[in-house]
């Protein structure tokens, strides 16, 4: 007999609950999830939405003032004293209604410049120093980077507000102070000092040309020297700040005057512990200032309820200034405080909180058991945390913050993964983190789900439901691939399977080395994960593969600027193999010179600008007495080589192979002419759209390139499960990943590959002429490293995922695949299950990362036309979620053009 519906549904694990013959709803029901945060959170979010990014000079003023007093002290103490003074003088600002407080600067959405890293870029453009920076090449990326014009960005000056670095507003009356501070650091900043010495690297001229022509996007040493790492909250949670000072004092006694067998830096331990004490004391005063402000507000407050909240806030702050937290909310305030303190110590983007659901679980568990808190209150705090984290801005140059990061700060929270013993680490609090992420959809904290086959099914399905809100998170990362990478790469530093399990995402999707520490609370022991490695995504930052191909094809000459970047190879490039070999030669030359010069930048940073607070948090600095600069961290092999435009290169090579070498449809000279002539099209800048589909023909252009352009577009493309193109990717990965080991970081460790584009595919595309895959001049590259070029994946998501999984992702720190899905394709509970099936299949096939943009392209187009109606529209860019109105046009265009998968 034919199967019954009941049997069919039972097979599928669905209970039979359709009321046959009963009442049908009168309307079609929209099942999709639309949630609201708690009223308190809504209020603060409303303030956030109306707030502009603001910069202040308070912190740099106090830092500089103190620093200039101590030119006779050892560098680590000079720095620690400056930090202490700056922290102690930071004005506290508490917003009524908030429960978790403390902020970077005295503004709701504030931050400040750090001229000791780099002072050039916010000087007046006519300033001689700025002009000099322009020559150096570091400023040219700014010219190709545009911020989104809306949201909290201040791209233009208005009234008495001056726009700085393309994003921040500063009060006009503070500008003279800023310029004075900047001039004080002229010649002393990491940027300037590093430049003085990097010039001594043979071949430095090539590096300048590489930067000026945007073959590489930026130097990390003086822009964002830290970040793309996982913070560690363990020591303040376990010992409290008084406890840390006590440890430092005891250790000082043990090490004073002793080298203990280390004649190089053994003696430095004394100064380091002394520095720890200074910085922690500064942070304690800073917390006390917030407590005083809470007391002051309490005394002024008429509303009894708010008065109590101020009082309790003051009590919490007074307690955690000295002691380990006792409750969930105290622990939460502690990690927020520590987080902001680390971010204020250095210019940082991507200081990720990591697995906070597991870090805070002990407090959650004991509070719930004792009835001190309800789940609803916990969700409210988690929602507040999203306002808190989204309000954090990062101050750096336009090129870095706009062109690379799209203004994002990557306070990524990881959920899932395995515990120390290899069991699923998911706990109840992580379900609530997902709930809060759905209730209060804001870009921070972006959620990363560390996928493992052992994770509970309902947790994964809840994650899918959150994706359906359109928030863009969580992204899925493969736990097994990451562990394999960590064991491979950090094996020589002692990485074992246990520590590998502690990993989390630092930054947008940088696999970061972590470890376990035993937290004690009321006599119970919990092993909590936390960061134990140096910053990743430092070193060779974003090398543009399509640009290197341009230089290969044109004998080392940049076709936009006419400058000879690499020494001419003078080869005829008669075979595909010769072309690929020459490409690799230029690639290696670029990576080598960038590695050497960046090593010097970072070395200057570590000598004068080393992290003290971030260092003391991470194992095993406090035990060893060495900070980051003296290899105090457990894992130091963190410097990497970042590629950008992978798929654009693969498609370009496939087209060259097919049309020029295999089928000889066109000779190389003709192809090069076509590229130079942009296939008869206008440039992307001329028409102000960076998406291939919008490009226009020149009026005067004849049709001579039409045929060739069409052939290039029809040539095999990555993402279609076509071995012709996919094998080129495989060849590239098999060269690139092992090749990174040939470069050594300043800490004496081999490098490794990192394959994310963040937002560089916009700015780099803007600086690159047409490519042989048919991409036109100035248009954006394919995003990420595994996404297909928009519109070229014509065989659906299965073919795309199959292409992506062709190589071993565990050879690399990451890979990145973004997919845009139409809301109808994942409707209902079944839609969520099907999306999970797809995700799981990719993970099983060895994919490392996948993330979804659930949005209708029509909505994005409308949002581009009417940004005023879309202040809160969020989209997934490349490893992070951001407000639509705050991202630059080139990336907006690329997002619209991404192939959209609809349910069939």
């Amino acid at each position, binding site marked *: 007999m034919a*199967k019954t519906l009941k049997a069919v549904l039972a097979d*599928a694990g669905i209970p039979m609950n359709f009321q046959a013959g009963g009442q049908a709803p009168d309307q*079609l029901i929209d099942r999709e999830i639309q949630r609201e945060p708690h009223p308190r959170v809504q209020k603060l979010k409303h303030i956030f939405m109306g707030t502009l990014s603001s910069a202040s000079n308070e912190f740099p003023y106090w830092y500089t003032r103190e620093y200039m007093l101590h030119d006779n002290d050892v560098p680590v103490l000079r720095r620690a004293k400056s930090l202490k003074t700056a922290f102690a003088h930071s004005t506290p600002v508490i917003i009524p209604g908030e429960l978790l407080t403390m902020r970077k600067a005295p503004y709701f959405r504030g931050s400040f410049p750090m001229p000791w890293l780099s002072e050039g870029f916010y000087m007046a453009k006519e300033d001689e120093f700025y002009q000099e920076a322009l020559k150096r090449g570091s400023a040219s990326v700014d010219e190709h980077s545009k911020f989104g014009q809306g949201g909290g960005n201040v791209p233009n000056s208005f009234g008495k507000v001056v726009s700085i670095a393309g994003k921040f507003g500063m009060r006009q009356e503070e500008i003279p102070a800023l310029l004075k501070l900047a001039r004080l650091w002229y010649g002393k900043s990491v940027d300037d000092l590093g430049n003085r010495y990097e010039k001594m690297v043979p071949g430095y001229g090539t590096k300048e040309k590489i930067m000026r022509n945007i073959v590489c996007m930026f130097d990390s040493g003086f822009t964002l020297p830290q970040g793309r790492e996982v913070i560690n909250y363990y020591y303040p949670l376990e010992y409290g700040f008084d406890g840390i000072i006590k440890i430092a004092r005891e250790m000082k006694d043990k090490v004073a005057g002793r080298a203990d067998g280390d004649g190089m830096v053994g003696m430095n331990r004394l100064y380091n512990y002394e520095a720890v004490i200074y910085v922690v004391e500064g942070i304690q005063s800073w917390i006390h200032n917030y407590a005083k402000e809470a007391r002051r507000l309490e005394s002024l407050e008429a509303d009894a309820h708010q008065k109590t909240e101020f009082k309790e806030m003051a009590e919490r702050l007074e307690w955690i200034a000295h002691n380990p937290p006792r409750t969930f909310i105290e622990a939460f305030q502690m990690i927020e405080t520590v987080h902001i303190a680390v971010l204020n110590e250095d210019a940082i983007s991507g200081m990720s909180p990591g697995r906070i659901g597991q870090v805070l679980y002990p407090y959650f568990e004991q509070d719930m058991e004792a009835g001190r808190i309800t789940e609803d209150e916990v969700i409210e705090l988690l929602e507040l945390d999203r306002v808190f984290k989204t309000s954090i801005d990062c101050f750096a140059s336009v090129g870095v913050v706009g062109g690379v990061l799209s203004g994002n700060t990557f306070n990524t929270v990881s959920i899932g993964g395995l515990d120390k013993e290899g069991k699923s680490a998911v706990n109840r609090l992580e379900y609530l983190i997902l709930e809060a992420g759905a209730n209060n959809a804001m870009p921070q904290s972006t959620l990363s789900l560390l996928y493992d086959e052992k994770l509970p099914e309902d947790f994964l399905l809840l994650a899918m439901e959150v994706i359906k809100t359109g928030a863009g998170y969580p992204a899925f990362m493969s736990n097994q691939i990451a562990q394999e990478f960590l064991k491979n790469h950090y094996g020589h530093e002692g990485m074992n399977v246990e520590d590998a399990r502690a990993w989390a995402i630092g930054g947008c999707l940088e696999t970061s080395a972590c470890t376990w520490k035993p937290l004690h609370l009321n006599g119970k022991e919990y092993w909590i994960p936390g960061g134990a490695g140096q910053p990743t995504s430092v070193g060779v930052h974003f090398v543009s593969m399509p640009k290197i191909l341009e230089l290969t094809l044109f004998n080392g000459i940049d076709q936009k600027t006419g400058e000879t970047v690499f020494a001419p190879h003078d080869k005829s490039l008669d075979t595909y193999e010769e072309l690929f070999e020459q490409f690799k030669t230029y690639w290696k030359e670029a990576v080598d010179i960038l590695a050497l010069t960046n090593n010097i930048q970072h070395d200057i940073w570590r000598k004068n600008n080393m992290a003290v607070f971030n260092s003391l948090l991470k194992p095993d600095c406090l035990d060893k007495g060495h900070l980051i600069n003296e290899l105090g961290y457990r894992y130091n092999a963190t410097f990497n080589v970042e590629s950008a435009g992978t798929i654009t290169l693969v498609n370009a090579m496939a087209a060259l192979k097919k049309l020029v070498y295999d089928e000889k449809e066109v000779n190389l000279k003709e192809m090069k002419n076509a590229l130079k002539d942009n296939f008869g099209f206008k440039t992307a800048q001329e028409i102000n759209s960076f998406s291939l589909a919008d490009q226009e023909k020149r009026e005067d252009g004849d049709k001579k390139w039409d045929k060739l352009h069409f052939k290039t577009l029809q040539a095999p493309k990555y993402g279609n499960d076509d071995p012709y193109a996919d094998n080129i990717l495989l060849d590239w990965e098999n060269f690139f990943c092992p090749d990174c080991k040939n470069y050594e970081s300043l800490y004496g460790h081999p490098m490794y590959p990192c394959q994310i584009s963040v937002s560089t595919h916009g700015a780099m595309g803007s600086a690159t002429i047409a490519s042989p895959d048919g991409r036109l001049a100035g248009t954006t590259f394919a995003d990420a490293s595994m996404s297909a070029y928009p519109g070229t994946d014509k065989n659906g998501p299965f073919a795309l995922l199959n292409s992506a999984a062709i190589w071993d992702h565990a050879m690399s720190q990451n890979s990145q695949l973004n997919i845009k899905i139409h809301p109808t394709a994942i409707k209902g509970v079944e839609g969520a299950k099907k999306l999970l099936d*797809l995700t799981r299949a990719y993970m099983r*096939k060895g994919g490392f990362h996948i993330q979804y943009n659930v949005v209708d392209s029509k909505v994005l187009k409308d949002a581009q036309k009417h940004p005023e109606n879309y202040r809160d529209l969020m989209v997934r860019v490349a490893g992070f979620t951001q407000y639509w109105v705050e991202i630059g046009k080139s990336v907006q265009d690329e997002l619209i053009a991404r192939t959209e998968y609809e349910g069939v």
Partner: protein
Amino acid sequence: MHKSQTSKTTTKPPVKEFIVETPGAMKQEALRGFIFDIQGHSVHDGPGTRTTVFMNGCPLNCIWCCNPEGLFRHPVIMHKKSKCVCCGNCIESCPYDAVSITKEGNLYFNRGLCDVCKTHECLDTCYHDGLELNGKFYTPDELMQKLQRDRQFWGAKGGVTFSGGEPLMQSRFILEMLKRCKKAYLHTCVETTSCLPTDYYMDAMQYVDWVFTDLKHMNNGEHKALTGAGNSLILKNIETLAKKPDWDGFIVPRIPVIPNLNDSDENICATADFVKAIGLEVINILPFHRLGESKYRQLGKVYRFAEQKPPSAEKMCHIKKLIEGYGLVCFIGYETPF
């Protein structure tokens, strides 16, 4: 000697001769299926995530058909006006003078000539992606290879759905495919008109797990007017299958709800009556949509429903209530629990 000759002829099939097999026809050429689309990540055509194979050929000719390209039995040129720049290259290249330019400056394809062309010279001269050759031949091996790849992405519940056109039209190919799928433990599903010879229909269904079958109209005359064929064979096939003792598949009758043509209470009740009478429990009602419109234009055909609005949500709910009055379960559109 003889053997090598045979293998020579089979490895080199006549390129320019296209054959679509009709039921019962036995051809000696290498077995190939003619397919106009394959869509992975198909989430509305059966349980789980699926790959849907759209096969050419159909015994009906429904006036609202949303896949007009599926009616062809050979590859056909589609003209995408949105991409065409009217460069005229195709006019020059066509040896049959089938393409011309109208007074308004649009391209005109003489479909009488164009649709029977087998050489398609125009394709190579179009540099703007304005022309596309729709339809492709697959051997069972080639199609199985695709399905075996895709199955890794389906999840536990997914499978393959054969749709069309009428997927059972190409009898030899589909039987071979269904058998191979069963052997490979693939879940199979067909979206069928059920308008096929009963013996053959029952034979094919042995290898099918799920059947979506249309009930376009219960009145024989109306059915004929709307689809070009009566409904008696269809009803007989569905009933026979539903009552077949040794078949343990699942049948979902579907009503494509076309405003003013088959959405009367009378027709809905008659359909529900029939479904109830043969012992089935569920009806899936699909609101009319206009998604096929652009394909009509690309094929140079007139679409009679260009102005027709989809049925209202209220109307769909009304139909759902009527059906539920018979003690049947009714799903609207893709709001299904599978």
